[in-house]
């Protein structure tokens, strides 16, 4: 009998965890560091609401994409958050638009929307 009780508890906690995720958007952590973003590519679903949580490991960076309407400033020691629900399927480049040093021009990441 006690074995069955344990199984029930596990199911309940798994169910609860799923419920929490369903309430809030998926969070993706992105780190900016001269001269790139980690991860360098993320994949989102069209219509899915996600929160991008942005960190900088060194200096002030930007996080910009005209089509995705992203224009964030990432300051070291702080977290910048932006929630988006992409409506267009495609591959988009976000760039650092805050000049951060000599390799700045190649600092970008890819957001794929499927």
């Amino acid at each position, binding site marked *: 009998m006690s074995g069955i009780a344990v199984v029930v508890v596990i199911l309940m906690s798994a169910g609860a965890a799923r419920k929490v995720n369903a309430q809030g958007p998926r969070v993706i952590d992105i780190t900016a560091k001269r001269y790139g973003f980690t991860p360098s590519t993320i994949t989102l679903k069209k219509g899915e609401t996600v929160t991008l949580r942005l960190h900088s490991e060194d200096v002030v960076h*930007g996080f910009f994409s005209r089509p995705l309407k992203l224009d964030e*400033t990432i300051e070291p020691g702080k977290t910048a958050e932006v929630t988006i629900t992409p409506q267009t399927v495609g591959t*988009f480049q976000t*760039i650092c*638009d805050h*000049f*951060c*040093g*000599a390799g700045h021009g190649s600092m*970008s990441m890819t957001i794929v929307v499927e």
Partner: protein
Amino acid sequence: MKDVDRRGFLRVAGMSIGIGALYRTLPAAAMTGSANEMLTALGKKSGEKVAPFTFVQMSDTHVGFQGPPNPLGTKAFEQAVAKVNALPQRPDLVLFTGDLTHDSEDKDVHAARMKRFREIARNIKADKIVYVPGENDAGLDGGALFRENFGETYYSLDHKGVHFVALDNVSRAKPEVGKEQLDWLEKDLRRFSKATPIVVFTHRPLFDLKPEWEWFTSDGDEVTNILNRYDNVTVLYGHIHRDNEHHDGHTAHYGARSLIFGFPDPQKGPEKKPFAFDKEHPFAHLGIRSLDERPGEELRKDEIELTLREMSGVNGVQQMLRNPKI
């Protein structure tokens, strides 16, 4: 009336040479009646006669840059200076459209690069040389080092009936001109009539050429709205390291080639990656175009290839790579 082809006249390469700027503007001015008077007044104001003149644009010399796309460092810049000095007509003005230096996170290194830039630029034989910064010159220190060397990052000047405006879209944190400068621009231009020929020189393009490659200015539309109140505006910019031509209302925008390495056509290449260095053609994608326009004559365009003189060709390049002092 034949379109005097201001496109042709002001088309820009790493360097463009415009001869006879006023020939292009006078026919348009004549149609508006009071415009000739205005041009004369403008000339009087600056103490100069309205007259044809020669000017040159040079861009993106990135002094201090070293790497595979151009292992020759400042050679193309030095060659271009020699070409300008060999022109049949000494230019009145030389406009530098930014990225004079390649930035370094070490302030002393950056200052040394600025000094080296000045040493090379000092050899240019021209009546006047004017500069705007690129993000490599001014992005990390808000323009402090640039101002120490060249003065203000935005300003204007009148020259023989043409009004030149230097715009700074690089020394703020974001790629923008900013409200203060927009207000200044509006005031600066207010005293001119619609027909005044205006040449704006700036580093980044003022329109969305390729935002995902950072080829844009956030508030560029606001600048162009002000410029479009005037009939004859040419914007010369750098940053993109290639030729480009774009028209928006009365404003024509021309991108310049670089004197360090070239970028591909953004419509064709998915990646922002410079052209690789080619020993057979060490100055490919850099080059110079000269434009000569005179009334009643056809526009003459010449593609001038930079050469290595006595050390031309692959052997010369190898020799230079072995001996960077040359």
